[in-house]
């Protein structure tokens, strides 16, 4: 299978509309507009497409809810907040293949009956902002966006909304708050965004990579698409690999590629032939795995059976030189900083966990600190308003579950031997 999401990106002008068209781009939007919106949703359902933002929610189901809601106008929001540490998979689409995303959004907008779309772009991607704005202008000038798409009287307007540095704005209801000009604090659900989303209208939020699959689904049809990857989780997937591998980078592979193969076959193994110590498979807030647990298919359905999550497909590989107490501390420091402060278990819990981890790492840990951390995280789990708090608790629980001796050693020796 050739590349779908990263197609043509070696071409230095791949972000230009003419290059995109030369490579076959914008040939699927006209095909889609020949179909009824319901037929497109049916294709997406057959394709078995799941959201690539982290949760793996079935796309067609979300779309069906939104399209059934009688309120107008409807909105399509593209989540380009890409804030999960270790994640850099949407960036190549945004910077090198923006028209793929735009074509995907135009198709999705038509399927949903959405007339307005926004790309919620993280503030840390200034280059992507310029590239997207230029691409949107080109798409408007060429009749792929606007009031009368391809002369068919179909309307879809697209704009970029720039975030301002807050990880929580990747959570879809916080994203909506932020788009409305407010602090990015999650909303209670229900009502769900598909019914009451941005500007109180039916809203679909999908990830960059998710929406970029649409042209290809139209091109080959849902049935053929569903044969790629694993039956429960079809399609191509972007895995972004960082840390101690020979060849870090973004890899487009069939969904369900085995984690070990990603690291050892595609990325050339551990840097300098050193020993693998641990892998965080789906972004910093997904459960860490020890080296003997990496023979797992990297998809949304199989990873939970193997003790972790696919998350954003951000594989962070760590060799023996890494102090895992330090890594755990750094992740909690991040989550404490990014906690929006709306609910107590997360706001307080992340701070306490960071503080205890800090003293353990600094050689000032006390006996009982490990159990204290388990108790604090146990009091957070399932009691927070949004998944950020649960994620923080689960990070600590899983580091301790797999690497408890390293925490004990720090406390017993009152120092970190990695320093």
């Amino acid at each position, binding site marked *: 299978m050739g590349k779908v999401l990263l197609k043509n990106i070696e071409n230095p002008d791949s972000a230009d509309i003419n290059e995109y068209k030369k490579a076959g781009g914008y040939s699927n939007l006209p095909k889609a507009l020949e179909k009824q919106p319901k037929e497109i949703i049916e294709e997406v359902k057959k394709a078995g497409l799941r959201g690539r933002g982290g949760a793996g929610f079935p796309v067609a189901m979300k779309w069906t809810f939104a399209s059934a809601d009688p309120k107008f106008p409807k909105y399509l929001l593209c989540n380009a907040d890409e804030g999960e540490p270790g994640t850099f998979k949407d960036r190549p689409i945004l910077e090198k293949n923006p028209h793929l995303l735009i074509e995907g959004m135009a198709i999705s907008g038509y399927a949903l009956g959405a007339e307005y779309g926004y790309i919620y772009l*993280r503030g*840390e991607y200034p280059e992507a902002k310029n590239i997207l704005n230029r691409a949107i202008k080109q798409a408007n000038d060429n009749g792929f966006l606007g009031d009368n798409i391809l002369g068919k009287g179909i309307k879809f307007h697209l704009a970029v*909304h720039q975030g*301002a540095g*807050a990880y929580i704005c990747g959570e879809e209801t916080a994203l909506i708050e932020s788009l409305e000009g407010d602090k990015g604090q999650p909303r209670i659900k229900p009502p769900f965004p598909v019914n009451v989303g941005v*500007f109180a209208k039916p809203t679909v939020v999908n990830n960059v990579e998710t929406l970029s699959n649409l042209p290809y689904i139209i091109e080959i049809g849902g049935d053929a698409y569903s044969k790629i990857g694993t039956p429960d989780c079809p399609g191509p997937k972007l895995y972004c690999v960082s*840390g101690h591998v020979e060849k*870090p980078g973004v890899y487009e592979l069939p969904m369900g590629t085995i984690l070990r193969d990603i690291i050892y076959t595609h990325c050339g193994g551990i840097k300098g032939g050193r020993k693998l110590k641990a892998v965080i498979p789906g972004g910093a807030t997904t459960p860490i795995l020890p080296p003997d647990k990496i023979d797992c298919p990297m998809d949304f359905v199989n990873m939970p059976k193997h003790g972790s999550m696919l998350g954003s497909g951000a594989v962070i590989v760590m060799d023996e030189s890494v102090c895992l107490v330090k890594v755990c501390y750094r992740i909690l420091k991040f989550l404490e900083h990014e906690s929006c402060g709306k609910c107590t278990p997360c706001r307080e819990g992340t701070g306490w966990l960071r503080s205890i981890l800090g003293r353990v790492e600094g050689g000032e840990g006390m006996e009982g600190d490990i159990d204290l951390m388990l108790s604090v995280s146990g009091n957070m789990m399932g009691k927070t308003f949004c998944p950020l708090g649960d994620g923080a608790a689960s990070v600590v629980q899983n580091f301790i579950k797999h690497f408890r001796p390293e925490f004990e050693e720090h406390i017993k020796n009152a120092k970190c031997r990695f320093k």
Partner: protein
Amino acid sequence: MLNEAAVKELNEIRQKYPNARAALLPALYIAQREFGHLSPEAYEAVSEILGVPKAIARGVATFYVMYKHKPMGRNIVQLCTNVSCMILGAEKLVDFLKNKHGLEPGGTTSDGRFSMVIMECIGACGTAPAMLVNDDFYENLTEKYIEEILGKYK
């Protein structure tokens, strides 16, 4: 007050949204660019153009790390120290910037040439350690490379 061009820019952005409030984040960016940071005058201008109370604008702005509330240096060095960068030596680079260039996290050099900010992941983990200087990405950083990069910014 914002100059005419900035007001025009803001009014154009305003048209992308069904109400003025939604233009608050972009308005804050424009005001920050024009005033150097979000000073009382900057809030005044945003509030007047969008009709959003100053207290609300300030409450929103202080939620987000990319809005600045004090004068910044001419160039902002934004170094990532999150996991992928950390395990590839980002902390050594923090020390290097401090010891060799007097750049303290959160601080500004006395000549006003640089401010430095520690970032969370900036989406360049595959080419870590990484930083942004103003709007420019720099990846696979080493001390020598940083030396070269800083020389470009006056």
